[in-house]
């Protein structure tokens, strides 16, 4: 961990979050350096989605502090806006806008948020749609797409905003291996441009390939955090070993 000279771009300290009586996140510390690619994995229901949704304040935490890019998140709408301008997100359920075409889904946010001209926005959108291999679907509506196509639109929509930080919630769940490869290449490329990434994924192959660091969660806590070679080679905790046991026995 020799790169720890910079300030972290995401810093969570002692964060706890409850849904009603149920504590999802338990006094959790988590930080990400600029340009780092962090993979979040762990069993279903362990709080991975909740964790990344806290980073752009789609959920509110009850204890601890969260700072993104040096801005601490609280109720101030101005700060929240600043953070969201820097943070992009791909949702597990895609959340495309059903009343807009694929092209509009990608270009309208560019026009509204980054005040790009219509032409510029559409060109940029088409660039990313081509990257995920669906330029030919640009005129369709989300309701007319297959699952994998929807997911790719969601990825293109977020990427075309060129955020400094990207949050991915299982970005390849609906994708076939070929497309996973494509998305992986795109992500590696973006990381080379210095984009910071936090990615929830269950595909260990993908995790190995893309991650600088693997963070393993269970029951609302971070159990292990290590570079892929170390994590996959010699997991330190029993829980992680058990979890990985299932993966390895499968393939």
């Amino acid at each position: 961990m020799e790169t720890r000279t910079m300030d972290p771009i995401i810093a969570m300290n002692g964060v706890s979050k409850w849904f009603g009586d149920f504590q999802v996140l338990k006094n959790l510390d988590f930080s990400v350096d600029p340009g780092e690619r962090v993979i979040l994995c762990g069993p279903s229901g362990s709080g991975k989605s909740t964790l990344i949704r806290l980073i752009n304040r789609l959920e509110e935490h009850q204890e601890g502090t969260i700072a993104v890019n040096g801005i601490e998140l609280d109720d101030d709408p101005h700060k929240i806006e600043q953070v969201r301008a820097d943070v992009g997100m791909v949702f597990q359920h895609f959340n495309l806008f059903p009343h807009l075409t694929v092209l509009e889904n990608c270009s309208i946010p560019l026009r509204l948020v980054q005040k790009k001209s219509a032409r510029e926005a559409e060109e940029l959108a088409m660039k990313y749609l081509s990257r995920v291999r669906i330029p030919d679907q640009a005129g369709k509506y989300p309701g007319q797409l297959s699952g994998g196509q929807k997911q790719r639109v969601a990825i293109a929509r977020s990427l075309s905003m060129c955020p400094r930080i990207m949050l991915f919630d299982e970005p390849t769940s609906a994708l076939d291996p070929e497309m996973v490869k494509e998305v992986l290449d795109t992500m590696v490329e973006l990381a080379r441009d210095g984009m910071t990434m936090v990615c929830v994924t269950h595909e260990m192959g993908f995790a190995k390939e893309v991650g600088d660091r693997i963070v393993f969660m269970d029951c609302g806590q971070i159990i292990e955090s290590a570079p892929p070679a170390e994590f996959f080679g010699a997991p330190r905790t029993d829980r992680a070993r058990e979890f990985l046991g299932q993966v390895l026995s499968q393939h």
Partner: protein
Amino acid sequence: MDFDTIRLYLTPLLEGSVWTLALFFSSAFLAVAVGLITCFARLSSRRAIRTAAKFYIEVIRGTPLLVQLFFIYYGLAEVGIVMSGFVAGTLGLTLNFGAYLAELFRSGIQSIDSGQYEASRALGIRTLQRLRVIIIPQALRNIFPALGNYALVLIKDSSLVAVISVSELMRSGEMLAASTFQSLLVYTLVGAIYFLMCSVISYAFRRGEKNLSIPGYWDGASESSDFSKA
């Protein structure tokens, strides 16, 4: 009942229709605006704003339009706020329909999946644009048939504005019937004109609904089969 008579009768009725349409368009437009604002106030996280919106909605829905028109035209005049009948009528219809539309719009907005809010927030789209570009178009599509109801009620309710000295269609009809003693003929004509207006509005809404339908989603035509097939 020759043509000349009908032509003679039609002139004042058409003049009345112009007023009816003027009332309709001005207050339809304004009521949508008032309805939207009230709806958002009703959904605000600030308690005071929310309570004010609720109060407005409940008072309007708890009293008849006629009383509201009387209050605005005659009541306010007594404290020195004097408006023409047309302005008072537009104001009354606007405030009245605004309250009902506010609740209809709230229905529409609350029927939108929260994922849509989350996605637009995550993209950094700000409140007003989020509403304008993402939420309202989808909400509008959801409530569109019910919105047509209000348009049709508005055109008929505009006849109440007669009490505050606007000679709209219904009042023109009354006067014509009184002076010609041909009430059956006159009211048939009046009814026909209202029905015509209603049909045109209805047609416009049916067309609008088609335009708003999104390929790949519920579009009435394709999914309707749901109700008779298995």
